[in-house]
Structures are given as structure tokens and as C-alpha cells.
């Protein structure tokens, strides 16, 4: 450990200040960023019939887990015992959870406080509910908000569906995690 304490001779580098050009918040550009990464954005006002929309998009015999009362699911996750929990998780077709904030430059949505950390990854399809007022321009503003309080036990920036291009650079969605990502944007 003492080996690591040794400083180099000469000038010691001080920490730079993080200061970049402020950028505007643009819902239009956020939507484009999300579609660029293979996701879909729907305004809550466009969602006329939730169950009809779910059925059309994902099929009718599906297991839907939701933390939202506005967009409810059809099953409850019991997390008392594993492996039962694992089986349940693996049966989730669509998961609907809330996002805390969204980032314009990369279409990423910050998700924390999930009942089981596997939910955003193991569901076949993921839907994130996000408020328009929770959108910030870049990662700097995102961290400004996130560092106002203690970082959560677990949190994740999610940008688009799971993907890979490992087979001769052909882009494929749904590599291990969700095959699709939809963001429902509300006022």
C-alpha cells in the first residue's frame, strides 16, 4: 500500500472543475435519442386504452408486472423465497416501472428503488414511466440531481433495449435483457 502513496516528482495535478456549455432541454431531442437507441416514446395522452394497447403490442396471454396504478399489471411478485422468486421473475413478459429522470443527449432513464433488482433486465419487454419535467440535457445535470441525496443502493441508467452486435456487427435487440423498451412520457 505504501507503494501507492508515492507521488511523482514535480507538479501534482489538482481536480478540475466540471464546467461545460449549458444545453437546452428538448423533449423532441429526447424522443429522438430514445428512438436512435432502439426505444419507443409514447405521450401519455396518446395512451387511450391501456389494456388494448398492451394486448396489441405484446399479445393477450401475458404476465404484466407493474408498479403503476395508472398503467396496472396483472400479477404480484412475491419475494419471500428463492428459487420461487426466480421462476416468477423469469415469467414476466412486460414490466412497467417508474424512471426518476431522463437524459436528452443519450435517451437514458435512471431507474432506482426496484422491488427486485433483476426486474428491469429479466422482463421480456420493459416500459418506463417518466415525467417530462424530469428530463435533463446531459449526464452532468443528471448527476447533479442524483448526488443531492445519497446514491441509492442500486440504480441504473437504461438506454434502449438490450442489444448486441457481436455477430459480424449486425445489431440485434434483446440480447439478454428486454427485447423492447417503451417510455411513457407524462406531464
Amino acid at each position: 500500500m505504501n507503494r501507492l502513496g508515492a507521488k511523482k516528482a514535480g507538479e501534482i495535478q489538482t481536480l478540475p472543475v466540471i464546467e461545460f456549455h449549458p444545453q437546452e432541454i428538448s423533449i423532441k431531442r429526447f424522443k429522438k435519442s430514445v428512438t436512435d437507441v432502439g426505444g419507443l416514446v409514447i405521450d401519455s395522452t396518446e395512451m387511450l386504452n391501456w389494456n388494448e394497447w398492451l394486448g396489441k403490442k405484446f399479445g393477450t396471454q401475458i404476465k404484466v408486472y407493474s408498479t403503476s396504478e395508472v398503467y396496472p399489471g396483472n400479477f404480484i411478485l412475491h419475494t419471500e423465497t428463492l428459487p420461487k422468486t426466480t421462476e416468477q421473475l423469469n415469467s414476466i413478459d412486460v414490466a412497467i416501472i417508474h424512471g426518476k429522470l431522463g437524459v436528452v443527449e443519450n435517451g437514458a432513464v435512471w431507474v432506482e428503488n426496484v422491488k427486485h433488482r433483476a426486474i428491469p433486465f429479466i422482463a421480456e419487454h420493459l416500459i418506463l414511466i417518466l415525467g417530462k419535467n424530469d428530463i435533463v440535457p446531459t449526464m452532468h445535470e443528471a448527476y447533479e440531481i442524483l448526488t443531492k441525496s445519497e446514491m441509492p443502493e442500486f440504480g441504473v441508467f437504461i438506454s434502449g433495449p438490450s442489444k448486441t452486435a457481436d455477430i459480424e456487427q449486425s445489431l440485434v435487440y434483446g440480447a439478454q435483457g428486454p427485447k423492447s423498451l417503451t417510455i411513457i412520457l407524462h406531464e
Partner: protein
Amino acid sequence: MTGHPQKASIFLENESYVDWHDETLWWIREKRDKASGKVQDWEQLRETASKIKEHTLDNLGQYLLDFEKNATDNGIKIHWAEDAEDHNSIVYDLLKQKKTNCVVKSKSMLTEECGLNNYLEDQGIEVVDTDLGERIVQWLEQTPSHIVLPAIHLKKKDIGEIFTKKLGIPFLEDADKLTQIARNHLRDYFLSTPVAITGVNFAIAESGTFVICTNEGNADMGVHLADMHIASMGIEKIIPKTEHLGVFLRLLARSATGQSITSYSSHFRKPAKDKEIHLILVDNGRSDILHKEKFRNALKCIRCGACMNTCPVFRKTGGHSYQSTIPGPIGAILSPHYNPMKYGSLPFASTLCGSCSAICPVKIDIDDQLYHWRQELNRKKSTPISISVVAKFLSKSGWFDLGSKFFTTIHKLMPNVAERILKPYSHNRKLPEPPEKSFKAWYKENS
């Protein structure tokens, strides 16, 4: 001919394959340019990242202690590993504790560096690499040829064939279908394996948090369904503050693949209820490099692979030609620390064009270090006579002029001899046409 020149020569035999490999990686370089071009303060971002990393290296010991304290307070168990052996036995001991003989692993070049897979397999433990590219390479019993795109050297046909061989399915080349098959195959492991090993992209000293970035989500699929998460990390991956993640996450994916960010950037601060997180801080020669003034900045590396995508040598000869865990320009300046004999050809596998340094998101002076390595590798060696002779001819004007006249004559009268003197240069290139006289001779006559 040994080392890189020998391996490169083999790779270069199949020109259409070389062109395919080169064009694929150049395309990724172009995607990176497009992505970085959209960021208003790109150069300032690089400079800021570079300064943060340099500051961190100046205070590495203290930041590591801070990280250890904060992470431990959060319930993460910290282990220190002096070297690769140490790291591997720590992992093995943890696996023994959980009484498991199978482990899922997401991408970690550090575990490659430590030879973890082979070590565990020798102990009878099945290691399942869950990154699709790594799984394919694992099946083929190869090593990754690129630190971010492990299977970049493989064509669809090679991949289809190994899927057939390993899973017994009819031959397929369709990427969508193969990916779906891999998804199902790996899902079985995720659901039943109690220990998951990952790497670490960034660890934050002030909060004891660490971040893992993936596109597939395979790291998360492994760890959240397992009971124990083992995270292996090189000590240089520390950054001081959470807000610094804004800088690094804006740079990382854009530099690596031209994406604005990876699909998932998972931040771990505490283990989930009834689960364990073990984080292994690995030195393995890094503290030695830290003390080498000319080479310490290589430790700023965030393992984005941009230097490999831009390097014409890498693109045209492939990662395996370097025969090192980390190939490419960054590999050429890191590997010789570990084995100057084995990797002595790597600093010379370069024209010192500087493209790597210009693209590096944390401004590592790669081309400078390549130059310094060339001097370092010869420092203790005795000078060959040919070099001493050339040095003499170049330092005395009388000798210089004599040598010049001599070569002018040979070049004009016996061009074949001139060509033989300058083989292997003249093997596939014509020498310049012999001029009537040298510039000096012309000047003497005309002034």
C-alpha cells in the same frame, strides 16, 4: 522473425479478410467520430477526464483507502490482491464457500489478464462467459481479439459453425436467430448459478459505489439472480467523485462504439438483502507502473478500445498478432512491463502516427510511450556494430559526404546492388530513381 512481425505476416496472407477486418473497424471509428462530433465540448471533456485521472494517480493510495472504507461501510466486502495468482485464489476461495462448481462471468479484461478462466477450470469449476462475443470466443477456445469487441475477427460462418458444434442445432448464420438461441442458452445459467463474476468500469472513492456498463445486460442478469457477486477491479479504475461519472460516461461508449451510452450503466452501492458483494482490488504490476514517470499515464486507461479501432496496424493485422491480453496501442505500452522479452516487438509494431493519442478519451500519450519503450528496451543492451557505424557516418560531415558519394555511384551504376543493400525495404517497393547527383553536390557546383 518473431513476435508481432511474424504473426502479422500470417494475418496479411489473406488480403480480402484483412480488408474486411480493416473496414469493419474503420466503420466503428467513423461511428465514434459521428458521436463525438455531436458533443459540443468534446475536447474539453477529454481534457477534464485526463486531469481527473492524473490527479487520481497522484493520490491513488488515499483514494483506494477512502473507497475501501466507504464500500465496507455499505456492506461490500473488499479484498486486496497483490497479483494474478492472489486474485485467482481469492475468487476460488469464495466459490468454495458457496460450494458451487459453476460460475457466470460478464466481460472483464482483468480476469483475462489474471488467467482466471483457466485457473478455475483446472480446479474443476465451469466458467460460463455470458457476453455473447466472449461466449463465442470461449467455445472456440480462443482469446478475445479486442477488449470491447471480442469476436470482431470472426465471420458469421465461423460463429454459425461453433453454435452447431456446441449446441447441436442446424447451421445458421442469421444474427437475430443465433442471438435468440444464445439468449435462451445463457438464461438457463443465469437462473441457476449462485455466483456471478463481473468486472468494474468505474469505482467511486467518495461513496464506495461502483459502476458496470454493458449493452446486453448480462452482468446484471448474472448478479441479480445470484447470491454472491464477485467484482474484479484493477486499482487504477478508481475515480474520486460521483459527479465525475458524468464526464466518463459521456466519453466511454462514444469512444468505444460510437453509442452515446451503453444500454445499461449499473451503479452498485450496497448488496441486495441477503446477498453478498465482494470486490477484489487487483494490483498485478500497476503500482510498479505508477512509479515509472514516462509510463505511468498508461494507467489512465478506461479500456474503451478506441485506440484499437483507429490504429491501422491493429485494423490490418488483428488483435491476436499482439499475443497479449490487451492488444493494440494501449497493449503495446502496457504489456512490455510484464514481459519485455515476449512483448519487445510491440512498441515497434507502429509507425508512431499518433492517431491513438489523438483519439484517446483520457489523453494517454500512447505514441510518446511507444517511442520511450523503444529506448527502454535497448537501454541495457550493447549497441550493434551497424548502429555505431551509422552513428559515425551521420555525425561527421567528411564521412557523411563520402558515404553519400559512394551510395550515389552504386545506386546509378549497380541499382540491383543498391536494392540488395536496402532489402527488406526494396522487396515490394521500388527504390527511388537514382538522381544524377546529391543535393550537396549540386549546391557545391552551383553556388
